[in-house]
């Protein structure tokens, strides 16, 4: 406030809300500086952090307004990636902001920006735990696991929590996250017991993502409100219980797990028995292999009537996996979209079975609602053709079939052409396709470059 204040600045200061009818020339009046703080907060919400801070330079009136911002988001959009000493700069900045900040902070996000955690982060979490935080994202680029301080577990209002490269240990007094609806853990170190305690004490949890978590060997999910689950990583064993709201599940098993012996109960039956309300199911990598180890039943005892979308990684040379796929088809009468990704798992004991594609093994499979079938990653195997033929016969209302060759398909052009020609000869159940004289035209293209063969209704 040093120096002479221009006259109209003083006038602007004198002008308070509710007194706009003054006789001064409207265009000269600074109205933005007198906006109520609620409105300013709302405007800040839609501006990048960097620009929010820049408002401090407008005038003395604006110098500290930005500290009322409810959302503090530090990501790549707000800094330049080339800054080498950015960790130190960011830390000192966040320290300063939190020291001065007034009012609640609803969102705090440092996403993939900090190289690694420091003791500063402990302090931030302590402050945030007293600010009614709702949304927290704290992910680091590298470095050792950051041991989460106990203050994290006292975030009573937290609804969304995303953490990476952190080490979990819950304090004895941990009372749960009573508002938590979404939990996203990536490369965190967490024990079975801690994980279970968090899940059990977060009764509103709807979305759960676990990616490459270390230490979590027995994945046990008991979450009555859970709707969406994405898992990628390893486990020894898996257990679902009270998951009646679960509608979308993706499980990607990176290495073949042991699993326990279940006696006469097949793994398919055992692991999927609680997932009866599913609409969308995706199994990646070794999970189908895991489920198809041992006994593979024809059909599961429960029916997945809501299941519309099924996506599977199948090793085409493993008969058990194909039988497991058949089992899922039989148990899901209302499937509409199937995507099979041919994926040669590492050479394991392959169980080739005679007569796999005979009427007896494929009997009672009625994919009467399936409109779309996609088969990707084909390399030109006989088995892949078997699958194509099978789907064409069994799907009366099929509208589209897509077959995509693997990028590194070993077969040369002439072999591939032969393979495709074979495919074109198959009989089709869908009335929309049959009766067409020139079958080749049904496959909209089989150009070599794209290696995608489409069969359209």
């Amino acid at each position, binding site marked *: *406030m*040093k*120096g002479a*204040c*221009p006259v*109209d*600045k003083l006038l*602007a200061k004198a002008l308070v*809300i*509710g007194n*706009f*009818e003054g006789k001064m020339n*409207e*265009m*000269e*009046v*600074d*109205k*933005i*500086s*007198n*906006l*109520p703080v*609620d*409105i300013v907060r*709302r*405007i800040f919400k*839609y*501006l990048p*952090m*960097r*620009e929010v*801070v*820049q*408002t*401090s*330079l*407008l*005038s*003395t*009136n*604006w*110098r500290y307004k930005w500290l009322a911002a409810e959302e503090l988001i530090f990501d790549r959009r707000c*800094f*330049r990636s080339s*800054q080498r000493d*950015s960790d130190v*700069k*960011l830390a000192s*900045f966040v320290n*300063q902001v939190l020291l001065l900040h007034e009012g609640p902070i609803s969102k705090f996000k440092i996403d993939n920006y900090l190289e690694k955690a420091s003791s500063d982060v402990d302090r931030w979490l302590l402050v945030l735990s007293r600010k009614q935080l709702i949304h927290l994202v704290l992910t680091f680029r590298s470095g050792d696991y950051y041991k989460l301080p106990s203050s994290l577990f006292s975030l009573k209002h937290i609804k969304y929590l995303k953490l990476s490269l952190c080490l979990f240990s819950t304090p004895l007094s941990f009372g749960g996250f009573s508002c938590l609806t979404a939990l996203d853990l990536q490369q965190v170190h967490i024990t079975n017991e801690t994980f279970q305690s968090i899940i059990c004490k977060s009764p509103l949890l709807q979305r759960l993502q676990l990616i490459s978590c270390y230490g979590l060997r027995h994945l046990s999910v008991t979450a009555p409100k859970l709707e969406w689950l994405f898992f990628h990583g390893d486990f020894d064993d898996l257990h679902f219980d009270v998951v009646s709201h679960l509608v979308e599940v993706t499980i990607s098993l990176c290495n073949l797990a042991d699993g326990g012996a279940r006696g006469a109960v097949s793994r398919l039956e055992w692991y999927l028995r609680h997932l009866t309300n599913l609409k969308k199911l995706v199994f990646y990598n070794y999970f189908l292999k895991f489920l198809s180890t041992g006994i593979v039943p024809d059909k599961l005892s429960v029916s997945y009537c809501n299941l519309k979308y099924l996506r599977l990684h199948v090793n085409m040379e493993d008969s058990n996996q194909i039988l497991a796929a058949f089992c899922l088809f039989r148990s899901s009468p209302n499937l509409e979209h199937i995507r099979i990704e041919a994926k040669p798992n590492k050479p394991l004991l392959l169980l080739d079975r005679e007569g796999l594609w005979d009427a007896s093994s494929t009997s009672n499979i009625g994919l009467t609602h399936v409109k779309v079938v996609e088969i990707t990653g084909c390399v030109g195997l006989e088995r892949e053709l078997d699958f194509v033929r099978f789907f064409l016969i069994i799907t009366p209302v099929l509208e589209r079939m897509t077959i995509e060759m693997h990028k590194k398909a070993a077969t040369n052009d002439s072999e591939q052409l032969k393979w495709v020609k074979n495919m074109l000869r198959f009989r089709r159940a869908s009335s929309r396709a049959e009766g067409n004289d020139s079958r080749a035209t049904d496959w909209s293209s089989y150009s070599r470059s794209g290696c995608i063969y489409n069969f359209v209704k």
Partner: protein
Amino acid sequence: MSESTEKKMVRLRSSDGEVFEVEESVAKVAKTLQDMLEEDCADAVIPITCVRAPILTKVIDYCKDQVMISSSSSTTNNPNERTEQERKAWGQKFMEGVDSSTLCELLVASNFLNIEGLLNLGVDKMVSMIQGKYPQEIRDMFNVVNDFTPEEEEEIRNQNAWAFERDPYYKKRSSSK
């Protein structure tokens, strides 16, 4: 307006003394007025002390439109029903030509009268006006007077240096201006 079913009218007085007569349903779009009306102060003229007549006119235009949409949306095959896209286009058109001074008053009015939809339109407009602008550009737009001494300005820049560092995007944008 004077149809068989007599519509209840409400009178509003702007800060500069102009009285507006509107249907009750239009007034009730504003949550603040709805609460007042439900507590029954029907005959009186409701003073809107912080909103001038030209602004109140604009606010009433907005409320009338909301009533038109909602009253017709109950009937099937409604020609006035808007898709998300149409609504966005309508909002943009409604705020078109609103200058910075009017915008501030509209924000204050919609905040006071508690009209969430109009407040959102105003905030969107404000964000689109100031996003990516240098402090001096914002000052010019809204008649904010820079009352910092050069020393103070330097001090603020140094405190949060990262936020004021030039980045290529800003340079490009300002040179194209």
